[in-house]
């Protein structure tokens, strides 16, 4: 299956990627997707332990199962306001 990956702020700067598609095995979770992102974008590996995830605009847990066409966003600690 394919999902859309989006990255923001320091993650976008360091990876050089704002959005892309990634191919994952059926049944992949948020956690497995983040491991794949870490393998692809070595510059952000050290940031991933403090990175939250959102699926289709809602914060999601590592165990959340992804579906084809989902939008997975990697969310560094927010600093709005």
């Amino acid at each position, binding site marked *: 299956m394919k999902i859309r990956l*989006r990255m*923001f702020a320091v993650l976008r700067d360091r990876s050089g990627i704002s959005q892309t598609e990634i191919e994952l095995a059926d049944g992949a979770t948020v956690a497995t997707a983040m491991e794949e992102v870490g393998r692809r974008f070595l510059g952000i590996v050290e940031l991933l332990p403090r990175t939250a995830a959102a699926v289709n605009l809602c914060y999601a847990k590592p165990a959340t199962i992804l579906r084809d066409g989902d939008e997975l*966003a990697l969310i560094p*600690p927010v600093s709005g*306001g």
Partner: protein
Amino acid sequence: MDRKNDIIALQSTALDIGAAIGDVGDHGSGAIAVFLGTTRGEVNAQGRELVALDYEAYAEMAETQMRQMAEDARRRWPISRIVMLHRTGLVDVGQPSVLIAVSTPHRAEAFGACRFLIDDLKKQATIWKKEVWSDRSSTWAEGRGRQP
């Protein structure tokens, strides 16, 4: 009590405080609380002064979150109207980056709801700031919001 009058948005243009106060005005309300978050001047370890904050947002998610926060506030306080606005792009020192305005029958409810909304926005909303220094170098501000 009518959420269709709420105004919730991210915007790249300057925040209009007078317009926001007008927008929450309501004949059934006796109180309007307004919170403005502004860019605070700082000096970094290299002795450079902060000139601006450059805000980036995951806009679709942040606006969805802000609408949910307004719903949550409406469950806790008898709110007439809500305005929640957040800037994107460059916000110079001294200028506002976020505006929350709430109208309610009495002041305690207005203060309570306004504080809840800004606190929740800072914790949850998918918005980030980059600090822009006087030598034009820039650094992402350390986020203190939600962790995985």
